[in-house]
């Protein structure tokens, strides 16, 4: 049912939009405001640890395990890329920032592998669709690295080597 925000059932006060009596006092508002502010000030002084402000970069936020952070490519046991260069990730990518050149693999159980694999991190929108699309769990976005900085655009285009050595502990390769 609709109800009026000026009516008595409103959580925000009701009473219509005309001011009456003590409501006409500016001075009252000043004290009311000071009271709320002082209460917050004192609470914060005595409970410093509960303050919502984070002392970044000394403290890092906890984004949980699902954070979509900088990509990494997984390795097989022998250290070669798990990726089979099937192009699914680059096809599904909405910002078209993955490019892969495939090459034949000599091993009998592996058909193809990437010769080059680059991601343009400046184009990437961190949507995670590449991870969803990969049919062999070769690409992941679980490194936890979200501070991505470089001093030229070229450095944001990361290659196969870089991606294979991007580790989950946040250490740069």
């Amino acid at each position, binding site marked *: *049912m*609709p*109800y*009026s*925000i*000026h009516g008595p059932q*409103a*959580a*925000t*006060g009701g*009473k219509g*939009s005309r*001011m009456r009596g003590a*409501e*006409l*006092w*500016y001075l*009252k*508002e000043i004290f*009311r*405001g000071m*009271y*709320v*502010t002082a209460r*917050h000030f004192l609470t914060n002084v005595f409970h410093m640890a509960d303050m*919502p402000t984070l002392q970044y970069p000394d403290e890092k*936020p906890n*984004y*949980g395990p*699902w*954070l*979509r952070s900088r990509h990494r490519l997984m390795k097989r046991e022998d250290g070669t890329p798990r990726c089979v260069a099937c192009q*699914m990730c680059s*096809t*599904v990518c*909405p*910002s078209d920032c993955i490019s892969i050149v495939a090459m034949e693999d000599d091993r009998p159980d592996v058909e193809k592998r990437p010769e080059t694999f680059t991601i343009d991190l400046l184009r990437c*929108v*961190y*949507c*995670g*669709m590449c991870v*969803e*699309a990969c*049919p*062999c*769990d070769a690409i992941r*976005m679980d490194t936890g690295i979200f501070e991505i900085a470089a001093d030229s655009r070229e450095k944001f285009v990361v290659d196969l080597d870089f991606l294979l050595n991007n580790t989950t502990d946040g250490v740069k390769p």
Partner: protein
Amino acid sequence: MSRRALDRVQERFGGQILETNDYLGDESITVAAGDLPQVLEFLRDDPQCDFKLLLDVVGVDYPDRPQRFDVVYNLRSLDQGQRIRVKTRVAEGEAVPTASGLWHNANWHEREVYDLFGVEFSGHPDLRRILCHHEFEGHALRKDYPIEKGQMCYTVEKLLPEEAVLPGRETRHEGHWNAEGGWEGAPGVALADEIHSDYLPVNIGPSHPATHGALRIEALLDGETIVRSEAEIGYLHRCFEKEAEDHTWHQIIPYTDRLNYVSALTNNVGYVLAVEKMLQLEVPERTRAIRVIVSEMGRIMDHLVCTGTNLVDIGALTNYWYTWNAREYLYDVVERLCGERLTTSYTRIGGLYRDLYEGFEDDLRGALKKVEQGVQDMMALVQRNRILMDRTVGVGVISAEEAVRWGYTGPCLRASGVAYDVRKAMPYSGYENYDFDIPVGENGDAYDRIMVRIEEIYQSISIIRQALDTLPGGPVQADDRRVVFPPKDEVYNSIEGMMNHFKLVFEGIRVPKGEGYGFIEAANGELGFYAVSDGSGRPYRVKVRPPCFPIFASFTTLIQGSMVPDAIAILGGLNIVAGELDR
């Protein structure tokens, strides 16, 4: 209820209706361009049709047809819960008679169609480009406009005509401003002749802290009073709709995050609901409930941002920390749930990106407590506050009738006293199962707009709590392999799963040929996605109905005659989000 409008209009116009259609329950009629004004007027004024609200005007380009353009008017009746689409077809160079005499917001919607398709509207008072730069050549949404083609445009558009800016001191009194804001009487003298013009043109924006996004308003001031103003939008225009035509249905989801970036979750839900409607796909109960939860989270965050910044704009800075702290607690939950803060991309066609994580419920309940606390702190500062009321009561008043005529929806419409909420009028995703009320204002002023939003935060909190209490178990993905990726272990281990996955990635989801309009109550009003599919893996056309577009169209009228600080107070309360306005 259904078909009543169709029957009515057929009874009245008979042979003039070229085609009717009610695919997916969306009624639509096609008429010749010349008949359009009378059909639209009939639909608006006939008591049984009562289509008082013009939602949107959409262009669609079919280059292979002799009459290559479809122009679609999307109408809605508020009381009767009906919708209708009125279509007309025109060839290149043919004009459509304007509807701007019937609805105020038709003016901007038609300008958009003109801008992006090059369709002319005869009788339109101000047919200029609106989203693209005024020097832009060609029409971006025509199918033959290459998507990669960029253009460099440099010059600033003068919004106010020269004679409006310079009615000199001598000449000013020999004429007057008429109701449309035009100058009647002797023209002003040239700048060189008259240095002390009485009127001062001022640019507010495009980059101004109080516009909260890139908007430009050129205002003509008489002292501090705005005599006349013109708005320019499009600074954040990236042609979402063109991009959508170049991507698969699935790939569009991340793009929807960037429409109303303050409540990305709500947009995600709106988009997938529209596509699921076209697929006629049912999703599991659990998904429906989770979608309600995340949409309401989006709404709360949006209202916290809007009220917080609106109050800052009028000088009440402190409460901003309280609302933004509260929002931050919700964002912590969003980060953990979606893996990203603003660009959530949480929904999938036929389901969700992920099920809720372990501990989500506790986190969210905790965050809701903090939100309540934050809103209480804010209310302690501003509730019945003389200073706030002086600044907002009676400022930017819009009557219910005018608000409807401008195409208002959402909190701004409800502040004017119209109890229209899509969640009640046409419930989706299970909203009919939750118990909530619609707060409405009475005066349609800036104060009511703030208070309606705050009341809605309480309602949303209650909806989320009910949804959490009754959250069903089960899967979150629909069991439909045309649409949903198979589970990972199937992909890794079975050839069938692999093929299925492969097809979905490379071909995309195939949406049956046809058109549909999906809509939800977003934080700002009715967010609609009108989509046309040709049966391939990519949409033929996706049109967003951004709720703040018609609202912003009314802005220059709302502020006419008010002072600059009032204009700022009004702007904040309308909650114009440029990402959605400009698309």
